[in-house]
């Protein structure tokens, strides 16, 4: 059982933009006029079916997680042991093909997060929203926002038009490194290309379950592209990624590296060693097996609890059972690390 006094850092809670009008105070006159003239609604956020997993069905707010008061009521205040919670605003800026629109919306989102969330609760931290599809603009936004109180990470949607290990994205990682910020890859994104390597699926269930494939592609790309060789201090956090897919993927990647390493000569050790050193994963969802013995196998494969960061993923509901949500399957010593210790080390809180 969890020791009630054990500290908590919640590495994935959501701030949901209730609509483009909420950003008007943070947008230039030009973009306010565009909204009025063209009906521009900002990025669509259609990742979650409205009442199925978009929010815990117990939440009755018209737009869950759209106000700091909701978060305080549901997450922050009921947990006196909670030290920090990191806001992810996974508003789909990557859907905007107009680079100026993408940059303007990302900047407005960050200013909205700063004014209406971070400034209003000292327990909150946030990831920087960037126009990830335009790496130079994304780097500029990181430079603009980094160093402001509360911004602790750069947020990229896991789905992208090109994988993040490709050289096009180096300005983003360089900017994160310049400001000693971890990079977080979060479930979802809507860049326009199919979500699977064989075209578009029919159901949300397929997109949801298949998102682990995209995390795999990104992780393979980031390692193979030499990102961790270029920035040896870079930390990468996989948010809402699931966890149990990781070890078998690393077996495959290590095996292939032994056969194909001449192709990427900059890698100096097994891909899995880079991943264990640089990568962390949040615990919601975990995608655990039902059998406790199998879960113990997975923890052995993961090499222990060192890569795991507790997250509630508020307000999303992942259909995990209660024991999983409370991480009760971990021994107490591990829980201390997973609930706060690993995050404290990673984010240098």
């Amino acid at each position: 059982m969890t020791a009630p006094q054990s500290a908590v850092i919640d590495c994935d809670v959501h701030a949901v933009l209730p609509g483009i009008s909420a950003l008007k105070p943070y947008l230039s006159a030009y973009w306010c006029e565009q909204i009025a003239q063209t009906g521009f609604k900002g990025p669509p956020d259609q990742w979650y079916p409205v009442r199925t997993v978009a929010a815990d069905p117990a939440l009755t707010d018209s737009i869950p997680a759209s106000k700091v008061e909701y978060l305080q009521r549901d997450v922050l205040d009921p947990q006196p042991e909670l030290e920090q919670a990191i806001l992810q605003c996974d508003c789909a800026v990557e859907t905007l093909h107009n680079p100026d629109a993408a940059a303007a919306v990302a900047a407005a989102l960050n200013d909205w997060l700063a004014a209406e969330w971070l400034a209003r609760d000292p327990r909150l931290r946030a990831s920087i929203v960037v126009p990830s599809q335009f790496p130079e603009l994304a780097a500029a936004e990181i430079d603009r926002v980094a160093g402001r109180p509360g911004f602790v990470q750069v947020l990229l949607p896991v789905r992208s038009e090109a994988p993040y290990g490709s050289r096009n994205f180096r300005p983003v990682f360089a900017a994160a490194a310049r400001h000693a910020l971890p990079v977080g890859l979060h479930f979802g994104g809507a860049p326009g290309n199919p979500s699977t390597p064989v075209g578009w699926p029919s159901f949300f269930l397929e997109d949801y379950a298949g998102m682990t494939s995209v995390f795999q592609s990104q992780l393979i790309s980031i390692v193979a592209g030499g990102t961790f060789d270029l920035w040896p201090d870079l930390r990468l956090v996989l948010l809402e990624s699931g966890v149990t897919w990781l070890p078998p993927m690393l077996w495959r990647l290590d095996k292939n590296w032994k056969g194909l390493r001449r192709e990427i000569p900059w890698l100096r050790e097994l891909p899995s060693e880079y991943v264990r050193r640089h990568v962390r994963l949040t615990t919601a969802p975990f995608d655990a097996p039902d059998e406790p013995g199998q879960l113990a196998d997975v923890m052995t494969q993961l090499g222990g609890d060192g890569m795991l960061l507790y997250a509630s993923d508020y307000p999303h509901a992942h259909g995990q059972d209660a024991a999983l949500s409370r991480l009760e399957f971990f021994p107490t010593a591990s829980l201390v690390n997973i609930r706060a210790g690993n995050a404290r080390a990673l984010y240098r809180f």
Partner: protein
Amino acid sequence: MCAASCSRLVDCDIHNTITMEALARYLPKKWQDYQREFGRRQLPGDYYPKAMPFASRTDSWPPGGGPPGSNLPFLRQQLLDAWPIDFGVLNTLITIRNQERDYDAAMATAANACQIAEWLEPEPRLRASLLVPFEDAPLAVAEIKRHGANRRFVQVLIPSRTSQPLGQRMYWPIYAAAMERDLPIGIHFGGWAGGIPISGAGWPAYYLEYHTGMSQTFQAHLISLICEGVFEEFPQLKIVFIEAGLGWIAPLLWRLDRSWRQLKAETPRLRHLPSEYFRRHFWLTTQPIEEPPEPAQFTAMLGHLGMNDRLLFSTDYPHWDFDNPDHALPSTLTPALRQAIRRENACALYGFA
């Protein structure tokens, strides 16, 4: 050699190469002229040099000339006679490129005729997968009907990189025709996919990524085939994942089961947990074998998968990542399981006796 490794064997993934010269013996003149005039159009975007010429072992080039896998006597010498192989399943990778559909169909028909005359008839140990123009179901069904009574064809072959996830209804007539003849659908690593990026995050840079990431095509097909209700529509359909890997499957089933419990209103055709459909309808070849850092993790992985009667040994001859029958399976497997994987599971699936 140890006694265990000398036990009899079925190899469920052998690549014979049908050269353009061989194919020309079976391709109607009309299509030979077409080929001469327009060439074999490449779909752009997915060229990754594959580690070694022809993605093959350096010792697999026949001494008499021709590419790896193109010479039956040399294939006998290097594979069929080198190990105690009772049956071998050919998956010829002549590419049905998803271009002019009638040309695709003619290529498949010619390749199948070549397989019968130049591979199956001269070598009794060999069986073959039937090539079909899989992106055009009526043409594919016609090819299945043409050969459906020939039991030397033991399954219908579809490459894993298709233009749509394989649960989509455009492919269903192929499943109906295959099930009617009790032919499994073999889905094999690779293919062309009609220009869709090879990952859900766009085009990667390196062959290492292409190769490591190919399991993601199978992940999408597993999810799609189950979620679209294919196994409710075709309750006797059998699917063989060839060269897909094994380790990723159990974690994906854990995730899919949990997701489905929450989202099942979206897929009302499904009456069972996704993992139950998978364990009932799927078979898996072993190459490239998983190599976790500890053998105990391999055993644990098989426990998580729970499909010991569905694992089929394969070498992937003559490719560079060939699995040697003497060494590929971990020594920790029980003799009974080793023998099931090496031979018995394949005999049960394909009806070899």
